[in-house]
């Protein structure tokens, strides 16, 4: 039995890893959506984390925990830097500015020899493991549940429903927005680093606008009532194409159809329940 199980894990390893990594990405966009902002810069933060971690591993041979930490700190610094000007924007303007962030990163990576240009970085050693990815995901999820049950969680919910009213009630809006952006950048960077060390190859086009939209769709499908929603969305959207492989050319059509139906009939996402409160 254990040989069969090993075989299953080997065959589906990259899929299983992708579920966990996409779960982290879903939580990253959830952090921003939870305070009522719309960012499309998640793919850029992920790419930043992936490149920083890959370069540190390949050139400086840093230990993996330090690499992961750096892959969280650098996107966080970037978020702090761009947060000032961009968080003054709201709604669609913020989304546009964050799209620009992704494009800038892509162009810089393509133009620079240090990042391998369009050829990307290959030969990244495989250092992630099933346990590491899923314990990190569980840890982050637990953190979010605790936050959702606290005063901070209620402030976030108030901001999401009505920013002006929340402000009047004494919620520190700029600090909350900045905090959410920084935390989401750290999560995306972490996911990027895990992804880079699971795949052995990264290129600038992996973190394009498409990827940003994919990450956003995790949260939209799953719903942002609770942190479990986006993770469920990530699981479904990662596994769905695999289950549909038998349909060959119709795979993409059916895949899209299922998503459209889900969004039409469940506009608030699959999981609408909120986390109970304490205190």
């Amino acid at each position: 039995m254990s040989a069969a199980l090993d075989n299953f894990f080997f065959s589906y390893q990259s899929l299983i890893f992708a579920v966990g990594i996409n779960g982290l990405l879903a939580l990253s966009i959830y952090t921003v959506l939870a305070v009522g902002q719309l960012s499309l810069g998640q793919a850029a933060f992920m790419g930043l984390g992936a490149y920083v971690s890959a370069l540190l591993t390949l050139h400086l041979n840093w230990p993996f925990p330090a690499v992961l930490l750096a892959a969280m700190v650098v996107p966080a610094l970037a978020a702090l830097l761009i947060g000032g000007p961009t968080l003054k924007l709201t709604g669609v303007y913020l989304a546009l500015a964050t799209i620009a962030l992704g494009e800038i990163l892509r162009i810089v990576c393509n133009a620079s020899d240090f990042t391998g240009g369009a050829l990307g970085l290959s030969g990244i050693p495989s250092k992630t493991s099933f346990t590491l990815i899923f314990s990190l995901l569980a840890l982050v999820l637990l953190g979010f549940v605790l936050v959702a049950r606290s005063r901070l969680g209620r402030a976030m919910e108030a901001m999401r429903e009505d920013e002006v009213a929340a402000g009047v009630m004494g919620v520190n809006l700029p600090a909350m927005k900045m905090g959410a952006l920084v935390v989401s950048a750290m999560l995306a960077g972490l996911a990027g680093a895990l992804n880079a060390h699971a795949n052995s190859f990264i290129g600038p086009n992996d973190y394009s606008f498409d990827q940003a939209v994919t990450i956003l769709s995790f949260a939209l499908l799953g719903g942002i009532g609770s942190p479990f929603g986006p993770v469920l969305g990530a699981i479904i959207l990662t596994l769905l194409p695999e289950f549909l492989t038998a349909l060959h050319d119709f795979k993409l059509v059916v895949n899209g159809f299922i998503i459209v139906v889900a969004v039409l009939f469940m506009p608030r996402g699959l999981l609408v329940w909120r986390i109970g409160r304490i205190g």
Partner: protein
Amino acid sequence: MNKPTLAVSVLALAAAAAIWAVPAKADDVTIGAIEILTGPNARYGVAIKNGFDLALGEVNKAGVLGGKKLVIQYEDSAGNKDQAVNGARKLIGLAKVPLLLGPTISNEMFAVGPVANQQKVPIVGTSTTAAGITAIGSYVFRTSLPESDVIPVTLKAAQAKFGIKKVAVMYANDDAFSKSGYDVFKATLDKLGIQILTTETFGSKDSDFSAQLTKIKSLNPDAIVVSALVEPASGILLGARAIGIDPKVRFIGGNGFNSPKLGDIAGEAADGTLVGSPWFIAKDDAANTKFVTDYRAKYKEDPDQFAAQAYDTLHIVADAINKAGAADSEKIKTALQATKSTGVMGPFSFTADRDPADTSGVVVIEMKGGKFQILK
């Protein structure tokens, strides 16, 4: 509203179970192939699959390993490296294939190669031309000539025939294939002592090249060297003639130019363009004539170089399996390394580094009246 989702997931699970349940017959020899069969780049993967299937029919007339049927199990990568890795893992882990063919593009190979190599399963790329592919490991082979073997032939021919001394270089800097081709162009130009007047870059989705071309026009080059995929390449040719660059200034392209689409889009603007190709449809040796006739009969269209490379590769692989005497990865790898054959692309053997050793099959072709013909 949770019921429909449940129904969908049950259906999906059933579909997945159905795939697992497809059994290969015990006395067949099954090998795996990962190609782009759906999505925007499917034309490459489908041409390759056609080439494999055509050769497979010929191989199975006699069978392998004393009459066993050779079967190819395909996995679709859709051009996505994650799906390519998924496909490879399933082929190795579940189907237990002794050998993998593909994947279609170099970026996918950089992700899939390490997995196959680690599991000691030989993997043979038929269309991966970027630098560094076979450096992944000792189980990674390729039958496609890398750009570093084809481009020098093209440039030498251009230098010898047209006395080219100074050129302008253009390349798409956001695409791995184009960048890798540019690196080879630059190294070869330096080696041949051809002067580079300027190097201009663009994005592979750009459609307006007038800024770069105007600058190039003012420098009066003997030729313009371009590394790009066929769509921007056609745009550059059209743009160059539109701003009045002399038609005598030839364009020299990499493998991306090697497509009938170039003539379809750019028409007469493409006349005089030079490209090196590991294979050409009008090569008139017996093997190639038979391949082209059979391919046209089976698929009602002309083969391209991807189909030709795939066709040769399947014959090479089938021979290796026969020489190995068993569907065993290690033995097949040893047999592959010793390959000596002649196919539609010309004589073939592997170097010690598992790249194609023989470049004598390379032909330089020239665009005339919207069609390629061999440069004479």
